[in-house]
């Protein structure tokens, strides 16, 4: 593996005295799609939030392009290109679709948003028709598309996707995964957290399996999909 874009070493995080993440170590190289799979409460979301800085780390270090960012404020990390698309379709419900997208480009300054808007609408044409409507009026699938499009407006160098398929109909899940695969082909670096392990392992270059806050397995997406333990626990086989 070449020099990693993101290196996480011995990362810990806790909510009060409850340890949610324990000694997590992983790396993501430029252009890679890395999946994090694991059950409920395994620490996947906590890990993403600690990388994006929304939650403080209690131990360990996070390096981005070799630079230590463990204590950097979340807004500064967005400036560096680390952009998280939070779970649960966190769109700004009262704001219009277009204002949501504009906010995505907030860290870049507004000048570049016209070009970014065009790119977002090319990728998700459904959003263009609804540009003036409040984001809260969109369907669940469209809200997830908007959340991803908003993340892309920040021109991320590392995109952190948290459960993009959560609560969506199967048809929409396929559409979202197709969009993620498109992003990867376009050269994006993505760290993807998913409960839908089957789909995630199919499109991922590599994956880590998290259990009760620890990384217990790692390997290529295809290898892990064949692993007996993973099959039994997460693929329902």
């Amino acid at each position, binding site marked *: 593996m070449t020099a990693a874009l993101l290196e996480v070493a011995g990362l810990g995080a806790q909510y009060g005295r409850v340890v949610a993440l324990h000694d997590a170590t992983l790396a993501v190289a430029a252009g890679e799609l890395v999946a994090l799979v694991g059950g409920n409460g395994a620490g996947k979301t906590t890990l993403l939030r600690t990388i994006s800085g929304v939650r403080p780390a209690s131990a360990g270090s996070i390096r981005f392009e070799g630079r230590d960012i463990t204590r950097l404020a979340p807004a500064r990390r967005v400036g560096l290109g680390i952009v998280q698309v*939070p779970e649960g379709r*966190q*769109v*700004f419900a*009262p704001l219009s679709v277009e*204002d949501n997208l*504009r*906010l995505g480009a907030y860290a870049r300054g507004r000048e570049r948003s016209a070009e970014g808007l065009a790119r977002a609408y090319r990728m998700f044409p459904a959003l263009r028709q609804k540009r003036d409507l409040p984001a809260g009026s969109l369907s669940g699938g469209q809200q997830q598309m908007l*959340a991803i499009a908003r993340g892309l407006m*920040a021109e991320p160098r590392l995109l952190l996707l948290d459960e993009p398929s959560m609560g969506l109909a199967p048809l929409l899940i396929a559409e979202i995964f197709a969009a993620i695969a498109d992003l990867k082909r376009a050269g994006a670096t993505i760290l993807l957290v998913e409960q839908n392990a089957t789909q995630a392992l199919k499109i991922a270059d590599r994956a880590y399996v998290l259990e009760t806050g620890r990384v217990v397995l790692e390997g290529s997406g295809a290898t892990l999909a064949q692993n007996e333990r993973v099959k039994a626990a997460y693929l329902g086989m």
Partner: protein
Amino acid sequence: MIRRREARRGGLGALAAVLLVLPFVLPNTYYLNVAILAGLNAIACIGLNLLIGYAGQISLGHAAFFGIGAYVSAILTAGQGWPPVLALLAALVLNGALAFAVARPILRLRGHYLAMATLGLGIIVAIVLAQEVRLTGGPDGMPVPPLVLLGWSPPGEAAWYGIVAVLLWIAAWLSLNLARSPIGRALAALNASEIAAATAGVDVARHKSLVFVLSALYASLAGSLFAHYAGFITPAKAGFLQSVELVTMVVLGGMASTFGAVVGAAILTALPQIFATFHEYETIALGAILMGIMIFLPRGLVPSLARLAGRR
């Protein structure tokens, strides 16, 4: 976007028209006096609406900033002989510094806890104002010298009305422009979801501090002007009831609506005066009207009515 810009211009035009016509239709100076008090409350409410309506943060202690504005103006002009304008600016600086100092620790809290913390701030300030008898005159209050602008002192209600009307219009204009700037979008974003706002690169803590300081400055300006206009102030103007009244004005007029804040302030200032003829039933009538509005127009007057008008 275009529609909204037109609505904003139309609203500012309508506000200017109302402010211009009002002194000619009001029958006597008593009503002008009510209009001035309403205007001063409206300035404070426009600021408070930035915090409550746009950014979604509650403050149950906002009268503290109003009170500090009033007392700094009073003490510096009466006790130290400062020119009123300089005292007003000093009050803005002091209030801004106080708001900035408490903003970070206080605005980490949310919901009921933020309400409690701001409530505490308001109570502390009210107690200090009531206890520092040597400086503030204590619970009895203190007299305030008249306002002087470049050697000119507003001679009567009409001149005062002009000053307040101009400042109110500027306050509304600033608030509307802020709301549709990138800062306004960032405030709306952190109101909708702090996590999503943070992941979009919005510095949540910094924007909360900024809007808290701004809303304190609005209240400070209104407080300083009120002190000079009324000529006498008491710690009650910084008290809990006053804070609740400001919040009620904002909610009644409509959250996240600058004109709503103005309308709410105007109604809640004028209604008690109108109902004064009902004597002991005044409070009951006022309460019933508030309940009726919140039941039938839960989004507040201006947004609800704008929606009704838009549907036709």
